[in-house]
């Protein structure tokens, strides 16, 4: 049984001009200890997926359909209090911009101890000792002294290390990392990814690694889900999706990875832009940009179909 099983997750935003469907029947799963990469252009619905899992959709957004099973139990129907107990304790989250995710008015030690003491029975001194241990583990030098410092006294990279400590300090079994390096200096991005990878491997923590950097996915993830306009376009083992992408959109994305070996037979960069939520085309959402579009694509919406080692929502792989 998978650790996390998302089935047909649909998220809607009621607006004055009708209901916007931002996620449309998104399905995927994550096994214990596994790293699932989630890629896609900005606005594809990656963050929304993460927020929906932990029940932190912003109003008026709501889960309009589907199920979220975590450790075998539905969590999308839980009320606020049991859901709160899962957040931080079972499922941790890491956000994008470390300059804004730490409360400026509290010391990092206080933020760490409060998080741990919310979820675990710890005396103040035990919590403090553990907090120093975590700062040490995420690579903050002189942790015992730095624990009483405020966020503004740390560099951006160090703050993201603190954020990682905060996300992991209550020993969650799953971490949702939403673009954890996008806001960081290029020179420290690799360090942070390595840190995250090492720590979660040591603790057997599963990771949902959201990013628009295919290079990061290639080096870190076990499997990858490619999202496009609120749907999953393709999902499968990283190596397979990179070497033999089954969806033309994944194909275009892979072509944009500079670090991977050159592929002459691949398509050029994809032209055009992702459709807005109020202008989703009929049939396959990618069809206006697709270089291999044909009749069926403009009328019928494809579900995920088996396509060799991966599954892709593309009529090219229909066998009927």
């Amino acid at each position, binding site marked *: 049984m998978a650790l996390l099983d998302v089935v047909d997750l649909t998220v809607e935003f009621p607006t004055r001009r009708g209901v916007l469907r931002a996620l449309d029947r998104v399905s995927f799963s994550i096994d214990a200890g596994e790293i699932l990469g989630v890629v896609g252009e900005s606005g594809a619905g990656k963050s929304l997926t993460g927020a929906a899992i932990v029940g932190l959709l912003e109003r008026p957004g709501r889960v309009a359909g589907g199920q979220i099973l975590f450790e075998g139990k539905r969590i999308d129907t839980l009320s606020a209090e049991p859901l709160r107990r899962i957040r*931080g304790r079972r499922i941790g989250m890491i956000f994008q911009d470390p300059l*804004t*995710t730490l409360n400026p*008015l509290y010391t990092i030690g206080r933020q760490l101890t409060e*998080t741990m003491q919310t979820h675990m029975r710890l005396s103040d001194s035990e919590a403090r000792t553990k907090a120093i241990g975590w700062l040490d583990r995420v690579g903050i030098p002189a942790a015992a002294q730095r624990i009483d410092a405020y966020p*503004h006294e740390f560099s951006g990279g160090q703050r993201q290390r603190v954020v990682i400590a*905060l996300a992991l300090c209550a020993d969650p079994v799953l971490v949702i990392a939403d673009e954890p390096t996008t806001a960081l200096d290029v020179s420290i991005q690799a360090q942070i990814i390595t840190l995250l990878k090492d720590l979660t491997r040591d603790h057997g923590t599963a990771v949902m690694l959201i990013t628009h950097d295919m290079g990061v996915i290639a080096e870190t993830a076990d499997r990858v889900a490619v999202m496009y306009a609120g749907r999953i376009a393709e999902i499968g083992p990283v190596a397979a999706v990179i070497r033999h992408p089954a969806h033309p959109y994944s194909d275009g994305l892979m072509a944009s990875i500079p670090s991977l070996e050159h592929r002459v037979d691949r398509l050029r960069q994809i032209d055009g832009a992702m459709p807005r939520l109020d202008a989703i085309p009929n049939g396959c959402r990618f069809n206006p940009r697709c270089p291999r579009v044909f009749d069926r694509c403009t009328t019928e919406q494809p579900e995920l179909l088996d396509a060799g080692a991966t599954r892709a929502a593309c009529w090219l792989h229909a066998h009927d």
Partner: protein
Amino acid sequence: MFGFIGSRLLQAIPVLLVVGFIAFALFDYVGDPVSILAGQDATAAQRLALSHDLGLDQPFFVQYGRFLWAALHGNFGNSYRVAQPVANLLAERLPATLELAITASVLAFAIGVPMGVYTGIHRDSFLSRLMMAGSLIGVSLPTFLLGILLILAFSVGLGWLPSFGRGPVVHVGSWWTTGFTSWAGIRSLILPAITLGMFQMTLIMRLVRAEMLEVLRTDYIKFARARGLTDRSINFGHALKNTLVPVITIIGLQFGGIVAFSLVTETVFQWPGMGLLLVQSVAVADIPVMSAYLLLIALVFVMINLIVDLLYYAVDPRLRARR
């Protein structure tokens, strides 16, 4: 830290000098003290003598210097109206005004902040809408009208609370007086304090609400939620603390305003404070009282600004680092 206080006090000096100048200039531009004091049928010689006694025949800057020097020593001359030292008059009235202003502010803070937090968190609830609608009335109702309405309801109509005066007071120390020692004194304070504090309370509520809405959208609050912290800790700890800096500023400035403009409330309730004294003094152009009042209010504002700065310092570690 002490350097910081010192530099703030130094910055206050020019402000006080300018206000002092205006306070001094009042003597020249508002009425003629000699004719007020000497009366209509004084002879020219009598006027000259009086003018000399008051130092009015000296050069302007000498007069200004003397005025400041005397003011520094708490000497503001004698009131034209009651022929007593102004300092004594003010000292007599100051406790009444401060007690009223502080009570009004504490009420406004103690009620306004929780209401602001509540309306910020439960944006769309019925109770929030009710409070927001009510606060509009609080902001727009003129103070004197509110006072009169309260008197009509609770003094005239229901007969629960006194409509004027400060009730019995007790002397504490050499010059302070308080009405807090007796139930009658406290009852007398209720209506004036509500009247004076209402505007501030609604202002604080709306400000805290606006700041809460702002802060609740920030990434660090989202991250706090994602870590499973309790609503209580998020709303009243993480979020409220981050709204405090602007709230402290407004409360501080408003407190200055409350002291300065308590005259309306004091007039409506015949509250024996400085505001009432000022109103009585303006009516007869009692310049020494007016000028001393002006200086005192300036001093109150300067001190409040200093306290506000110190509170920032206590709340926000980023400011501590910068100094």
